[in-house]
Structures are given as C-alpha cells and as structure tokens.
C-alpha cells in the first residue's frame, strides 16, 4: 500500500469549558490515500467537524489535544509533517490553504461579503505561491471556468451575494482547489443545496478527484451522498469511530448496532413499506459521557457488566471492515 497522504492516530480532543473538560473526540484513527475519498458520517455532536478541523488546527483556543495524538501529513515532495506539532500561527500557512483546503456547508458565510469573489481567490494564490497578480487572476478565472461557472471573467469581478447558492458552492470549490491542495476537507458541502444542485456538485467533485488526484475527507450526515461519493466510510458516534470500511460492505452489511440503527431510521425509496425505526433514546450530553462503549445507553444488544464498563476494541468483520462492538454476531443484511 502506498504511503497515506494523511495518517491520523489516537486522536483525542478535549475542550476546556466552564463546566469542566469535555471529550469531543476519542481515539480516532484513519488514513486517507492520494485520490481516495473517505466519508465521515455521524449525527450532530458526533465530533466529525471537530476531527476535520483538527487536521488544519482550526479548533478554538480552549482545545486540548491529548499528547498521544498524531496527525501525520505526507504531502508528496515535502518532508512528513506532524500537524499537531505546529505551534505558531505563522507555520500554519503550510497546511491551511497550502497542503489542505476546506470547503464549508454555508458558502455565503464563507465568502467575505465586501470583497469580490475574484479578489478573494487571488489573495490566497498570492499567499501560497510566488506568482504575480496577473497570473493569479488568470488561474482564478481558469478555475471558475473549470467548475462550470459561465462567463468566468465577469463572475470574477462580482460579489458573493450576486451568485446563486449552487454557484457559490462551485466558486468555493474553485477557490479551495486553485492552490492545488493534496487533501480537501469538505464539511457538509451539499447540505444547504437543493437535490438537483447537489447532484451537480457531487458530479463535479468526482470529476475533480479524478483530475487532480487529491484525497478528500467528505463529512456528511447523508448516507446516500456517502454512497455516491466515497470509497471508504467511517461512522462516528459521540467522538468515536464505531465502524469503518469500504462503502459497499458497510452500507449493505453494517456490523455495528449504531450503523444498523441509522440505516433502519432512514426513509428509503426502494422500500416504501419499511417502517422508520428511530434509534431509541437521546444522544447523551457531552458532560455525561457514558463509560465503556459510548453507545451502550441506546443499544438494545448491550451486555450488562461488559458494554457499560469496557471499551470495545476494533474487531475485523471482513477484510478491511472493522467495528467496535462486543456483540458482532448479528450482522443484519440490509438490502
């Protein structure tokens, strides 16, 4: 196997708050190879955005990374870099917008409203390379054209409010890719878009992966979007990856009770008679993080004295497909 582009090991993230230390992410590990799309799925509060932000050290000042945590970035042509060892803002330019770019859910909030879209694209190109303004402008217009924005030269001089929602997200993607990052983090990039526009953006992202060969960390709560974009998927619950593997086996033969629950709660168009089964109970407050397996409070297969006391290790279900659960006997076949 080739060297992974990014390798996350034992990532544990806590936040210092007035109510005490809150664990947001615990023992998370994953690799992303060049040209690979890893989908990170989970509900609100599962820690998927916090994990993604850690890759660029974008979490707030009250963040405490556990000393055992490692995020190794192996950008081709550069020495391996431990992202969490960067301590100064001035060093961050290596990762933020350099080796790693990020696109966000709400593109209107991500563009400065009073600066033209073109100027914002040029600004980062100048920061991350030694090209002159004229060349940066050419590249920016070329990228706008590449993501399917018509009349790119005219759009270059416009403000974000003059763009429609789908076009803003395209511009966001153009901007993120213009510096040729090795890893793209996409945090719910299609959630705010209508389905017809979402389909266009998904097609575009697939084309761009094929063309630029970068790795993508694709965060979403929508399993359908994951199935259509990702090669591998990691399912998060309360800060832990509970199941991971290639997309097909995880979605068709989920092993972890939480993944199974998510799929049973999902309204499916291929079976309109299937009842919608909610995952029982509510997600616990981060202040009352359950000991043992984090899911045991809502799990109908929880074994008393085991699941509420010990943390389940990673068990291989089939080749490349692992889950953290003490009772993996019941792998339900979901068609």
């Amino acid at each position, binding site marked *: 196997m080739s060297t992974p582009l990014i390798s996350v090991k034992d990532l544990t993230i806590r936040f210092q708050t007035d109510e005490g230390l809150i664990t947001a992410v615990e023992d998370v590990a994953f690799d992303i190879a060049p040209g690979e799309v890893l989908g990170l799925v989970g509900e609100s509060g599962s820690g998927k955005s916090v994990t993604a932000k850690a890759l660029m050290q974008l979490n707030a000042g009250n963040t405490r990374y556990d000393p055992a945590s490692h995020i190794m970035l192996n950008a081709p042509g550069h020495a391996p870099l431990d992202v969490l060892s960067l301590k100064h803002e001035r060093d961050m330019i290596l990762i933020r917008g350099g080796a790693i770019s990020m696109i966000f859910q709400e593109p209107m909030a991500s563009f400065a409203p009073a600066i033209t879209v073109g100027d914002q694209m040029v600004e980062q190109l100048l920061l991350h390379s030694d090209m002159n303004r004229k060349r940066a402008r050419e590249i920016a217009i070329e990228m706008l054209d590449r993501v399917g924005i018509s009349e790119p030269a005219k759009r270059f001089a416009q403000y974000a409010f003059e763009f429609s929602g789908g076009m803003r997200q395209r511009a966001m993607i153009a901007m993120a890719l213009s510096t040729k990052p090795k890893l793209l983090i996409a945090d719910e990039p299609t959630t705010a878009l209508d389905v017809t526009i979402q*389909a266009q953006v998904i097609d575009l992202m697939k084309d761009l992966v094929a063309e630029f060969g970068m790795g993508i960390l694709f965060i979403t709560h929508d399993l359908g979007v994951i199935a*259509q974009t990702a090669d591998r998927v990691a399912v998060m619950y309360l800060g832990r990856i509970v199941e991971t593997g290639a997309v097909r086996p995880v979605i068709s033969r989920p092993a972890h009770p939480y993944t199974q629950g998510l799929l049973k709660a999902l309204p499916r168009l291929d079976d309109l008679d299937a009842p919608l089964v909610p995952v029982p109970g*509510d997600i616990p407050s981060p202040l009352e993080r359950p000991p043992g397996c984090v899911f045991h409070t809502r799990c109908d297969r929880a074994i008393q004295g085991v699941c509420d006391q010990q943390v389940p290790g990673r068990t291989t279900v089939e080749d490349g497909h692992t889950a953290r659960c003490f009772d993996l006997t019941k792998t339900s076949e979901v068609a």
Partner: protein
Amino acid sequence: MMTPLVSLDKLSVHYPLGRRLLGKAPVLKAIDEVSLDIPKGSFFGLVGESGSGKTTLGRAILRAAPISGGHAKYRDGEVDYDLAELPKDKLRDFRKRAQLIFQDPYAALSPRMTVRDIIAEPLEVMGLTKSREETDARVREIAAKCRLNLEHLRRFPHAFSGGQRQRISIARALVTGPKFVVADESVAALDVSIQADILNLLKSLQSDLDLTFLFISHDLSVVAHVCDYVAVMYLGTLVEIAPTRELFARPKHPYTKALLSAIPSLDPDDTNQAQRLEGEVPSPANPPAGCRFHTRCPVAQAACSQSVPSLETGEDEVHRVACHFWKEHL
C-alpha cells in the same frame, strides 16, 4: 377522492416589486394560479426546491401570506370558510382550527418561557380556557400525547435536545385542537434517528386526533414514506399531483422525473445520471414565459416557451400533470 378539507381554486400570491408612476408595477408571482384539493384526514405532501413557493402556499392557506387572487375554501363539517374573504371574527375562529409547525425547533421556542407556558400560550391568547386549572389540564393532556415527560413542563427549552424541542413545538400547535396542520420542513433540521421518531409521532397524532396535514418538505424520501398524496411545485406553479405510490412509481412530468433521479441512492453502483438538470431555478421575479420549466427541461419543444400547460388528468383520474407532452414521454 374523499371530501376535501381545503380546496384551492386558482390561488395566487403576488408581491409588488417597487412602484411605478405610470403603468403596471412589476409583481413577483410567488404562487400563480394553483388549484388543488387536500382530502380530509390525509397526509398531503408538498415538494419543490427553494423558491418553488411551497412555504408561501402553506402560509397563504393559513392566512399568513396575502392571497391576491383565486379562492381557498376550508370546510371541516362545522364551518365553511372562504379564506380569501374571511371577516375578522371568523379569522379568529379559523386560527384555532389551522396551525403551523415550524422548521427550526431551536428558533421557534422562546428561551425565556417554560415549556408549560410555551404550550399554553395559544390557549391564553385566544381565550379558549376559563381558568388556570383548565389550561393546565389541557397542556398536560396534549404534552402526554406528544410523548413529553410531564416533569419537564417546568423547565426551559435550552435543557432539551432537538427532538424534544420539536415535540414541544408540535404540542403547542395542537393545543388548540386544530383540524388542519401545516408542517413546514418540520424534520429538516433533525438527525435521521430523531427524524424517524418525529415522523412516527406525527403519523400517530394524525390518526388519534383526526388531523389533516399539509407536509411541506424538500426531502422526497421522507415524503414518500409518510404522505398519502404528493404535489410537486416549480417556480410558483403546480406541475404534478398524484397519490404517493403512483407518483413515485410513474412520475409523468420531466421535472418530477429529474427530482427523483437526483436523490443520491444508497447503492454505490446506482449512479443514475440519466436525467441531470442543467442550471438552476430561474428568479421568480422574472419567470420564463410559457411552461416555467422549459429553460431546464431536457425534452422541451418550441411550444413549451409559448403557451402555459394546464393541469391535465390522466386515465386513472387521480394523477394530474401540467406538461404539453407528458403523453409522449411515458
């Protein structure tokens, strides 16, 4: 079809865009001549993309958006109202018969009121109860029906999760004993596991309390699972309407077909790109002439940009579609 609870006849909502000294002021046609019947006791789905006018239609029926043309009848067996011309005293009565559940359970609840006060407010504002005891009894009754823990009535909304808050919003909407409820994207902000719980709750309340729902959503998978009928809107007009199974099994309008094929499938091998739509929804301030969908329609012909297609009924007499050429694309 059962008797309609709500019956719309060429209902329009037009907003003026600025003023002109001479000539007609331009208008934004948020809803343009929509006719449909919402059968009594049904779970009626209304789908469409942003800007399609689905929210405005829901609000117009609730008299929360101004009706500028056409008629909207409401008949629940006790009263018979023409919503476009409803005098004030009858509007007050209508308010307790028709209610709205909002999208965002975080924004819809006042952080300064207890859950009990939030649910009781409609009763107090409308003067529907005579004593505090009666109000409390009514609040507890509806809270129990919405599966809220009665111990929680004294707490403030910040203590609750998204799913619990949405149950509070539902209890508030149902406390006046409405017959008709508009649920506008009521599960859109929720995680799937909670979404399933709220959808199941709405369905059980519907049969318990004999409610009729207008369920507005952009999520076709959700609509397919809970609704009896589905109406599809595009740029302020109705393009197709049918019983749910019929619509999903045999969509007739090119827009409906494209919408259905745009839903990301859970099967990674099913990449269904046959009917990708180009471009985006045009501005409702300046909609295309003729069929409003013709600028994005993969099968548009010359006639589509000239004349507006009317809603035609198929052979089965329940499936209606507004397209000049629907018969040719079956």
